[in-house]
Each structure stands twice: as structure tokens, then as C-alpha cells.
């Protein structure tokens, strides 16, 4: 997988700090599953977190000594906690998404949003005032001009689109904020399936698009 578009440095730092929504962390983890370059950046951002932690002014524990911690450890199961495993990637879709896509990407109960665009909302993923959803966009379809009140992370799972920034294909991640007003167009002959997380509502620029917004619910 040749990946050309990556999350912003400021996004990686926020991710390591733990100050992003769960939805953002899911999209970032899905990107990193196939991107050693960003895993490396994440390791460095985590190392920064570790340094900051070790430089914090210590606050004495309320109980002196280690008796309490041992009784707590002995009360907890001593079983070692297994390492979390990520399911195998199926058909190019990152494995970390598998639990959220029951039956696989082709079996999802997609809902039509407008001609050429179908969506599936991933429920139960904390997203602030935003959401996490999959969009399946037919070839040649254009998404109306819009900007974002907060930020938007878009990970391409299948197919490709182009916009003012460039061409985005499988594995690429677009990291957009309110300074970007873009109009993506799906290219090539297959539908483009994207995983999109927002942490606030989108803002469509045109009058017609604004009328659509309540209907689409994005």
C-alpha cells in the first residue's frame, strides 16, 4: 500500500496526549495499521508523553508504604492481561474496524443520502458533537462544497477521490479543519468508500447544500 497523505503533526500529538475523541482515535489507528511511518511518529509522541510524566512534580500517595498496593494486587486476579489483538484485515479494510462492520463492508445496511452517496453510521463511538460514518460514493459523484466547524479525518478504504489538495486513495488520510473548503470528486471506476470522523458539525457553503444539511444530518 503506497500511502501519500498522513495526519498532521498537531493531530498526532493530540492523539498521543489522549485529547482526541474516540472516533478520531479509531480512524487514526485504522490508518496506522498500514502506515509504519505514522506508527513511528506516534511512538515519538508517546515518548514525549512519558518524559512529561516523569517530569511532573510528584504528589505523595495518601497511604505510606506499599502494603495497600499489594493487597489490591492480591485481590485482583493475578492473571496476566493478554495483549490486545487486532482482527485480520479483510479485503483491504483495516482489522481494527472489523467489530464495527458486522458481516463485512458489503453486508452493511447502507442508507442512501442523496443520489450516488450512501452512508453507514458507526454507533457507540464517542465523537463529541460529531460522528463516525462510512460513506460509499459512486464514481463521478461530487460532494457539495463544505468546510468544517471542528476537524474532520477521512480515511480512504477503497477507491479514490480528488479535491483541491490532491488525490486520495486506499490508506490515505485527509486531515482537515475549518481553514479548508473542499469539494471532493470520486475518480476511477469503482465507488470510493471512506471512513470519516468529525468532532463537530460540517458546514456546507452553498445555499442549496445548506438546505440539504438537516436532511442529511451530517
Amino acid at each position, binding site marked *: 500500500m503506497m500511502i501519500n497523505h498522513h495526519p498532521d503533526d498537531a493531530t498526532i500529538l493530540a492523539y498521543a496526549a*489522549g485529547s482526541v475523541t474516540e472516533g478520531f482515535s479509531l480512524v487514526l489507528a485504522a490508518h496506522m495499521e498500514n502506515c*509504519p511511518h505514522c506508527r513511528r511518529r506516534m511512538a515519538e509522541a508517546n515518548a514525549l508523553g512519558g518524559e*512529561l510524566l516523569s517530569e511532573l512534580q510528584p504528589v505523595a500517595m495518601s497511604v505510606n508504604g506499599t502494603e495497600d498496593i499489594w493487597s489490591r494486587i492480591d485481590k485482583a486476579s493475578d492473571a*496476566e492481561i493478554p495483549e490486545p489483538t487486532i482482527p485480520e484485515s479483510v479485503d483491504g479494510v483495516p482489522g481494527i474496524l472489523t467489530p464495527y462492520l458486522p458481516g463485512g463492508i458489503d453486508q452493511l445496511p447502507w442508507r442512501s443520502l442523496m443520489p450516488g452517496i450512501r452512508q453507514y453510521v458507526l454507533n457507540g463511538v464517542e465523537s463529541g458533537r460529531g460522528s463516525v460514518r462510512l460513506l460509499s460514493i459512486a464514481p463521478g459523484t461530487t460532494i457539495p462544497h463544505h468546510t468544517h466547524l471542528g476537524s474532520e479525518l477521512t480515511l480512504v478504504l477503497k477507491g479514490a477521490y480528488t479535491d483541491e489538495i490532491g488525490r486520495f486513495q486506499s490508506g490515505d488520510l485527509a486531515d482537515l479543519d475549518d481553514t479548508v473548503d473542499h469539494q471532493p470528486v470520486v475518480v476511477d471506476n469503482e465507488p470510493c468508500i471512506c471512513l470519516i470522523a468529525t468532532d463537530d458539525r460540517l458546514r456546507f457553503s452553498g445555499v442549496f447544500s445548506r438546505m440539504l444539511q438537516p436532511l442529511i444530518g451530517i
Partner: protein
Amino acid sequence: MLMLAVTNLFPESEEKVGVSVTETVDWLVSVAEKRDRYAFERLYDHFAPRIKSYMIRQGADEASADDLAQETMVQIWRKAHHYDPQKAAVTTWIFRVARNLQIDRLRKHRLHEVELTAEAEHKDQGYGSHERFEKRPDEDKLRSLIGGLPEEQMEVVRLAFFEGLSHSEVSCRLSIPIGTVKSRMRLAFDKLRMGMGEEI
């Protein structure tokens, strides 16, 4: 006499000097391999008060901060075998355990993260060798680089790491545009990575 007085005034800075990076690695590895209670107590003495401090910064009250610091230490005991000294510093690994617990308990959600497994590394063939394996960053170098960052960059970094503020929340707190928050973060991270010798 004077030396003794100084030591008593700053017990934590004395203690910090007293714990080396190698020691923390040895302790955690010994906990993982031998269930070494003595080594665990050394980790506890050093890290629990810092984790408690972190939890307070994240908004926990005194009692919950104690509880969360203890719970983090329980997890360190039970997950010690996940630690790979080739890949990460002990502080980095402990930071992640504390951070994930804090997100789970204080914010009531999860932080998804991809662990780098051996198979994943295997699949990554085709990338440059400098990117194929995660290597433990040099902590001493990182520490001095952090010390050299301008205060206005450190301020946004600390608000994100310690108070869990998002870019827009940092922007509100400091009354500066969100673009400025992000560019300060980029500058800070860039300087650290350049200093660590990254080819990015």
C-alpha cells in the same frame, strides 16, 4: 550540614537523580520475568506519586487520583510482560497505561491504538529500514530537547497532555487562534524529531 539541608528541601529532585533509565528498565523487566516484588516496589515509589500528579492535572480529585494511580500500578503489574525494552522507554510505556486508564475512567470512552506486533513489522517490508522497526528513543537526548523548547510551545503541549484539552479547547483557554495552537504543536514536535535524528 548545608548539603543535608538542601537535600531535605528538595527530596523529589534528589530522588529523580537517584533513578536512572537503565534501572527502570531492569525493574520492569524483572517484574515481567520474575514477578519481582522488590523491583515493583521501586517502580511504585518512583512512579505512583507522578501518576497521581498526572491524574490530578486531568481533573481527578485527591481520592480518585490516589485510586487511579494505584489502579495504574496494578495494571503495570499485570501487563508487565507486554513491555518491550527494545521499543519504548519505561516512562513511555507507563504513560500509555496511565493515559488509557484515565480516558477510560475519567472520560468514559476509549482510545484506540495499534500495537506494533511482529507480524505487522513483517508485513511492512518495502518501507525504509529506519521506519520498519520502532526503536526506543534516547530519553536523555529527548529530555534535553524538551528543555530547549520555547515556553509558548511547551504551554500548548502541556495543556494537551496534562489537561486533555483538544486543539479548539486550547485555543479558547489561551485566546489564540486554533491555527496558532496547531502551528506551535507542529514546531515543537518538529524540533524534537529533528533533534532525535529523524529522516522525515
